């Protein structure tokens, strides 16, 4: 940039699109000099013959009386010309306020709509602040700029596709409402990377690894309006998108610079929030008639906080009611510390519980936590076996987890049983050495036989396989440790269909595996437990066998432990397992008013997608059957309101890096506000020049003089 440009930009944030060298400036500066020279050289006058110059001469003599001032006035046209030329030069150099292009720009606004954005430490809320910041970007759009708006929490949705319609963008922007979801920038970036440069998608596929297809158009500018409550996104290429993070948060929340000697300062400055991060209930081991509710509270403030955790019981029959206070515990939590709490309760059957913190902070959402206790749901199991004492006895020990119906293969062929199996009455059907004609409408566990179906038409019998390995990571094989002591006489195996996972690998191939089937799972143990009256294996004598059955009931039998409720996050789908063969389930929201009907999915479950906010939900079906579930935030990152991504002043590059938000392969420094949008200012100058020329024309023709 030339000296002229830089000195000018010192006053106002003006840069030049076509910065000129000193020589070029000198040449340009010669233009007005030339005009002046031409003015002082002989003016080319039009000769006009008049009758006599007598009167004109006298007039000129009069005018020459105060000649200097007259000359200045006479040269008004010259001044106007000089002004016009200066403006033209200025316009040619392409002044602009921040920014770098003369062509259409693409902007992507990613608005964080996660739970933490509902915090009120920025008036009115962080989300509103983010929206108003985003609106500024919209207001600064040029006519042919394109803008896309993406709202993201744990998922991303395109609020507005690329458009240059500012009104539409504003309307779409204002439609963004706060959610109670967690944050995942990765989701947003994946959506954005796909949509940002639509034309690059196809070409990118043909490019070799490591080459990023760059659209010939301008690199889209991504502005992420967030409080930084998400993990760094690493190892994701966002193409040529230029990311910018606008950190929304209170002005005081600037992280401390590291003190000398310390490698890093605490990166999270205190924030005004006290949150329940965990809550669960379980039966008291020592007193079976009692259960315990325990949880964890974190204080994010700089000073310690004294508060009260109140346990409130809600009546399942009266959804949305205020509930009754059962107990309260005083809590005193140190600055930026955690504390646990515990309530003891008598078991009075189904309990819907809420723990509420009596504290006023910026994010009220996480001051309440919910749990449901005492809603055991037993797995409905159909055991088809001739007679297997070990299997039946083992299942009996799991009777609090399952209702087992046992029948022989003959009985199982009865029409009404077939109808029950086909209608999804059972969660799990165990075929012990019996291969059914058709697969049941349920998950299935096979012992010693392969499931029906084409994929299993070519069985391979393995004699005396030696168990080599088993997949302890699989939920069905959890805590199964002693399979190396298990002996197997004869097993059947086959080529595994696609999507299968091997459970037990033997010297003769996989002898136990799981295979997906139309939304259900077939688990196959390739060896029967009994060979007639003799043992085919000694597994049923090992402690891992009931453990395996327990895992299987939990994994395939849709059974839940009575003590715990599954953790449901706001915005995530909730799988409801209604006991009966009801075709629909009504779900009542936490306010007790909103009712949503869910139809049974092909898998026999009910998938509820309406758990948008935290609280207690109740599912009702049939005559008088219901179940409750709780939706909680329970996310330390969301509850931690300190904005991330701001870099304190005076840090070295490497120190600053640790503060930055990593997006793709770049570390992006957060800014407080979005950079002023690119504005080219050559055209007002050009219009001004035109105006001056018109004025000159007017003055010249109308002989108007000041």
């Amino acid at each position: 940039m030339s000296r002229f440009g830089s000195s000018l930009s010192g006053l106002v944030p003006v840069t030049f699109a076509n910065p000129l060298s000193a020589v070029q400036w000198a040449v340009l500066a010669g233009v007005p000099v030339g005009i002046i020279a031409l003015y002082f050289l002989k003016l080319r006058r039009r000769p006009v013959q008049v009758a006599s110059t007598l009167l004109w001469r006298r007039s000129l003599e009069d005018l020459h009386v105060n000649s200097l001032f007259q000359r200045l006035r006479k040269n008004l046209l010259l001044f106007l010309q000089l002004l016009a030329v200066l403006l033209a030069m200025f316009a040619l150099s392409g002044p602009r306020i921040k920014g770098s292009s003369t062509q259409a720009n693409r902007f992507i606004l990613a608005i964080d709509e996660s739970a933490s954005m509902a915090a009120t430490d920025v008036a009115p809320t962080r989300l509103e602040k983010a929206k108003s910041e985003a609106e500024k970007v919209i207001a600064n759009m040029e006519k042919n700029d394109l803008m896309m708006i993406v709202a993201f929490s744990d998922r991303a949705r395109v609020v507005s596709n690329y458009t240059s319609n500012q009104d539409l963008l504003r309307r779409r922007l204002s439609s963004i409402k706060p959610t109670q979801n967690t944050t995942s920038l990765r989701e947003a970036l994946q959506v954005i990377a796909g949509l940002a440069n639509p034309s690059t998608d196809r070409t990118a596929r043909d490019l070799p690894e490591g080459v990023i297809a760059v659209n010939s158009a301008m690199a889209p500018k991504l502005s992420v309006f967030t409080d930084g409550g998400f993990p760094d996104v690493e190892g994701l290429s966002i193409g040529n998108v230029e990311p910018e993070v606008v950190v929304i948060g209170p002005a005081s929340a600037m992280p401390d610079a590291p003190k000398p000697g310390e490698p890093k300062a605490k990166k999270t400055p205190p924030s005004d929030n006290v949150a329940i991060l965990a809550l669960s209930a379980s039966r008291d081991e020592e007193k079976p008639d009692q259960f315990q509710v325990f949880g964890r509270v974190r204080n994010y403030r700089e000073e310690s906080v004294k508060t009260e955790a109140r346990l409130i019981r809600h009546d399942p029959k009266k959804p949305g009611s205020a509930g009754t206070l059962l107990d309260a515990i005083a809590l005193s939590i140190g600055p930026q510390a955690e504390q646990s709490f515990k309530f003891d309760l008598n078991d009075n059957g189904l309990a819907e519980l809420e723990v509420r913190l009596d504290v006023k902070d910026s994010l009220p959402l996480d001051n309440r936590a919910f749990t449901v206790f005492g809603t055991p749901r037993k797995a409905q199991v159909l055991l088809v076996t001739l007679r297997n004492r070990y299997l039946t006895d083992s299942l009996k020990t799991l009777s609090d987890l399952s209702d087992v119906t046992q029948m022989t293969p003959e009985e199982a062929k009865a029409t009404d049983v077939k109808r029950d199996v086909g209608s999804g009455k059972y969660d799990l059907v165990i075929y012990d050495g019996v291969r059914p004609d058709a697969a049941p409408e349920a998950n299935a566990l096979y012992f010693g036989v392969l499931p029906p179906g084409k994929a299993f038409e070519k069985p391979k019998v393995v004699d005396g396989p030696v168990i080599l390995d088993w997949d302890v990571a699989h939920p069905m094989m959890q805590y199964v440790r002693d399979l190396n002591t298990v002996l197997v006489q004869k097993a059947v195996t086959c080529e595994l269909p696609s999507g299968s996972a091997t459970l037990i690998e033997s010297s003769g191939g996989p002898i136990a595996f799981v295979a997906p089937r139309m939304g259900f799972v077939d688990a196959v143990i390739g060896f029967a437990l009994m060979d007639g009256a003799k043992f085919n294996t000694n597994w049923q004598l090992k402690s891992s066998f009931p453990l395996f059955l327990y895992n299987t009931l939990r994994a395939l039998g849709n059974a839940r432990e009575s003590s715990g409720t599954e953790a449901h996050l706001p915005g995530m789908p909730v799988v409801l397992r209604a006991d009966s063969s009801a075709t629909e389930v009504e779900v009542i929201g936490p306010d007790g008013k909103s009712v949503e009907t869910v139809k049974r999915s092909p898998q026999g479950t009910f998938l509820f997608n309406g758990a948008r906010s935290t609280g207690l939900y109740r599912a009702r079906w049939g005559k008088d059957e219901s179940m409750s579930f709780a939706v909680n935030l329970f996310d330390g990152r969301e509850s931690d309101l300190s904005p991330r991504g701001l870099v304190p002043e005076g840090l070295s590059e490497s120190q600053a890096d640790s503060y930055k938000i990593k997006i793709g392969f770049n570390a992006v420094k957060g800014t407080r506000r979005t950079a002023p949008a690119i504005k080219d200012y050559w055209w007002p100058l050009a219009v001004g020049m035109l105006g001056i020329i018109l004025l000159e024309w007017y003055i010249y023709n109308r002989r108007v003089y000041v």
Partner: protein
Amino acid sequence: MSTASTHAPLLDAEFLHKLEQLELVSRKIFVGRMKGERKSKRRGSSVEFADHRNYTSGDDLRHIDWNVYGRLDKLFLKLFLEEEDLHFYTLLDTSLSMDFGEPTKLQYGKQVAAALSFIGLVNHDRVMMDAFSTALDRGMPSVRGRSQMYRVVGYLDSLQASGQSDLTAAAKAFAIKHSGKGIVVVISDFLDKRGYQDALRYLLARNLDIYVVHVLSKEEVEPELTGDLKLVDAEDDDIAEITISAPLLKRYKDNLNAFVGGLKQWCTKRGITYIFTTNHNPFDKLILNYLRERGLVK
């Protein structure tokens, strides 16, 4: 800026029509008012009998009324009204500066001169015409009577714009050339850098009844010039470089008004009748104006 109208025949139908109207007007006036208007002090050889008087010795015998002598036996002299001719002079500026405007000032001046001469001829005045530019030209010998109008027109048609105007020299020559008293109408734009005062003084010294018809073109009164101009004087090729601007134009008009006003004041002070006109003013109106100034029309 010489235009076709300079050479257009002076006596076109419209012009003649206007002249006839003027004739009627002037006749009406003159019938009632001319009687004894310019009665000569001399009684002489006119045809119009006026009176008798007694013969005294030394009287011209030719004037004795012999019929009366025969009847009364007394000598009476016949007295006739001496018709003193009104000498009507026009002095027309034919310098190059008159060759401007549409119609040109010269053409306009010719029309005025022709019209005034016509009125003069109709009233049996002795009409003489002179033109000048650098110097006084030969002029037209005096004519009288309506029938001589063609000579007036012929003379005027022969005049062409040429040379610089030297009003003073012309006036001096004019004063020497014409001794008779009478009316002189000076038709000029008076754009003479040497001034007009001396010239008019020469005429005043002749005890002439002076009428000044100051003709300017519309372009001179309201110039429609724009831009940066090099004004070239038609007569002496003097160059004035100007850039047209509102103040300059204002100053020009002020100067023009001062010039016209100065001339008028100068004339009025000395009993000279001053008539200002532009070439766009219909000449017949100007003639009526002239007649009004002469007191012939009220």
